């Protein structure tokens, strides 16, 4: 094994959303930062979005499920015991390469579900404590949105104005107003105006295939250039096999594999931002005499409580030409009408809904029709195909109903006993069964979404799926104050290893009813700020 001579002040594992936030912050604060990333930089000209066949490429080479993509920079995931399809992207930028950039702060009640609803646990921090960090990352990521949303406490003022809500947003907003239901222009981490290094969004509308113009605020575009400009060292194709400990039980670096060769990167502090699946996988791989069940796992909770957002979708057809070819994709509008708990509905917690332009995925129309409830039995092929497409493209509005998902220890990420990645390291295995509360929540909200379509004037509306893959991976290194019932504290610091921090979606105590990246980034910013401020008192491993 070769040892890199340079001891990092901070070693960050994973160059995704959370790794990018931490690398930028700590490099700018003058720390010697090394980032290890198993994937490559993504060349914007390799992204499929400017090709007519982008959707075909997105169904294989750029699919969010690593089992389908099958790159050697990916690790496979055994999903044989998961009802949810699960995935991410592995490379500089992490899953933000493919994310839709729906930027959603969690709401105050999300942090207090035990107090308010008597379920799961309260988070060890509050919305109010997180606000300054939301604001900081919203500036870094060029978040665009409208100020004054009554669904949040006063003061949520995104740094850039909202994108146009476009024809789809307008049409649905009129329907929601008839019902007296909440809606708001979408929030997107995509600049609506030139911002820092990024241009104003070109509205190509294919953001989920990667932004070929480098405009979407993925971590490689919006965060890593600053980290590198401040001296951070980013090593790609470096797959971490193990986080190591010194004799005092402090993390002293990591062993990684690059082109078949093993290296050791020594570090004073280690931060893991390897995604809600990659992080527990790495901790579970880092076994030692001190931690025979995986690093920092004295609670037994590493990998447990896996949550995702198995979200529902419904579509409506509209006679008007909605001009639905415009991005971003990205939210046009969102609704939080059914976000907060109303126990009379037969479940607790709720859902944020949003509209992403549907026309950018014409091939997606096949499943919307042939797997849809009520439409699956109608003929789609043959003479119907062209009329169905003509009725749908530019005339469809799709609601995505994002459910809160509550933690259960029977849903977990573990190491697969058989499957391995291209370096021979154990693959991840996910077990996930949708909880009863989540199922009811999705069903209820989908029914309401059909009412919204009717109010907006849809000629036909139906549920297309009650279990879409969200690609949101959460909960597998729970944060909390009690070392017996959590892996890390409110700063992401491992209870068992004081110079080891977790900063990604693994931290989530509950899933929240919104897309997670805003909260992941705010938590990473808070932890990075804490590490920088407390560096003098920090116990170090190397």
């Amino acid at each position, binding site marked *: 094994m070769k040892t890199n001579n340079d001891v990092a002040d901070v070693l960050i594992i994973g160059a995704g959303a959370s790794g990018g936030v931490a690398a930028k912050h700590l490099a700018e604060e003058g720390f010697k930062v090394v980032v290890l990333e198993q994937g490559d930089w993504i060349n914007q000209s390799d992204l*499929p979005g*400017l*090709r*007519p*066949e*982008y*959707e*075909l490429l997105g*169904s*294989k*080479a750029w699919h969010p499920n690593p089992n389908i993509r099958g790159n050697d920079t990916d690790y496979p995931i055994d999903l044989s015991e998961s009802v949810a399809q699960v995935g991410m992207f592995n490379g500089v930028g992490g899953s933000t390469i493919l994310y839709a950039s729906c930027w959603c702060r969690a*709401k*105050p*009640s999300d*942090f*207090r579900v035990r107090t*308010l609803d008597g379920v799961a646990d309260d988070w060890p921090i*509050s*919305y*109010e404590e997180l606000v300054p960090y939301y604001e900081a990352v919203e500036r870094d990521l060029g978040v665009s949105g409208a100020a004054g949303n*009554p*669904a*949040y*406490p006063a003061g949520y003022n995104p740094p850039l104005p*909202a*994108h*146009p*809500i476009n024809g789809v947003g*307008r049409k649905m*907003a*009129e329907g929601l*107003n008839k019902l007296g239901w*909440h809606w708001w*222009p979408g929030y997107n981490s995509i600049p*609506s105006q030139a911002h820092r290094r990024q241009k*104003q969004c*070109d*509205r*190509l*509308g294919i953001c989920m295939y990667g932004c070929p*113009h480098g405009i979407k605020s993925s971590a490689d575009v919006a965060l890593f250039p600053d980290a590198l400009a401040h001296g951070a060292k980013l090593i790609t194709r470096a797959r971490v096999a193990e986080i190591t400990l010194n004799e005092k039980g402090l993390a002293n670096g990591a062993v990684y594999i690059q082109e078949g060769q093993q290296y050791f990167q020594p570090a004073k502090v280690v931060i893991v931002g390897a995604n809600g699946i990659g992080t527990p996988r790495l901790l579970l791989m880092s076994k030692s005499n001190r931690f025979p069940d995986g690093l920092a796992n004295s609670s037994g909770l590493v990998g447990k409580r896996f949550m995702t957002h198995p979200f529902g979708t419904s579509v409506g057809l509209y006679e008007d030409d909605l001009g639905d*070819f415009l991005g971003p994709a990205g939210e046009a509008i969102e609704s939080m*009408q059914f976000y*907060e708990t109303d126990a009379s509905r037969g479940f607790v917690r709720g859902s944020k809904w949003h509209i992403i332009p549907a*026309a*950018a995925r*014409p*091939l997606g129309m*096949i499943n919307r029709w*042939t797997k849809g409830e009520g439409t699956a039995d109608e003929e789609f*092929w*043959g*003479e119907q*195909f*062209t*009329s169905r*497409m*003509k009725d749908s*493209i*530019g005339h469809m509005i799709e609601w995505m109903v994002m459910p809160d998902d509550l933690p259960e220890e029977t849903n977990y990420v573990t190491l697969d006993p058989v499957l391995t990645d291209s370096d021979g390291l154990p693959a991840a295995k996910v077990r996930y069964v949708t909880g009863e509360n989540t199922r009811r929540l999705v069903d209820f909200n989908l029914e309401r979404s059909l009412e919204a379509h009717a109010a907006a004037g849809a000629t036909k509306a139906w549920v297309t799926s009650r279990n879409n893959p969200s690609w949101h991976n959460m909960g597998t290194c729970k944060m909390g104050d009690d070392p017996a019932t959590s892996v890390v504290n409110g700063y992401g610091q491992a209870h068992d290893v004081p110079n080891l921090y977790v900063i990604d979606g693994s931290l989530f105590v509950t899933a929240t009813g919104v897309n997670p990246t805003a909260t992941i980034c705010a938590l990473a910013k808070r932890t990075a700020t804490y590490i920088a401020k407390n560096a003098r008192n920090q116990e170090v491993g190397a």
Partner: protein
Amino acid sequence: MSTPLQLEFRLSQAQRDRLAVFADLLISGGAGLPAATEVDVAGAWIDRALGARPDLVETVVGVLAEEGEPAEVLARLRAQEPERFDAFAFIVAGAYLIHPRVRKLLGYPGGAPEPSPAFPDEADAYLEDGILDVVIERGPTYRPTPQTA
């Protein structure tokens, strides 16, 4: 337009002729849109689609090799091997939907996604009749916690 992705594999003329029949059964045309063969789905466009999904070559070749009338083969696959039917229909539809003429007829502004940045006042134009005012006037809807209260 971008260069098509290259696929070394080539369907024979006989395979293309048979594919044309399958493709027209799946996409017969109408509502102002052409049938699959009218836009050469079994020619250049299936090549281009398979260039993006080379893993589906086997499915296409396999379905074309199924014995029987194409309509019967499709009906059998649909009933007995729905995943194979779905994969075959998907790549045929993929070849059709990337054709520039089809995209145009479906209303897409270009042969592939094109820039269309918003005008400076475009976002406001959607809201200027006060459509958002009623939402604001209803007041806060978030649930207070001990911290917010």
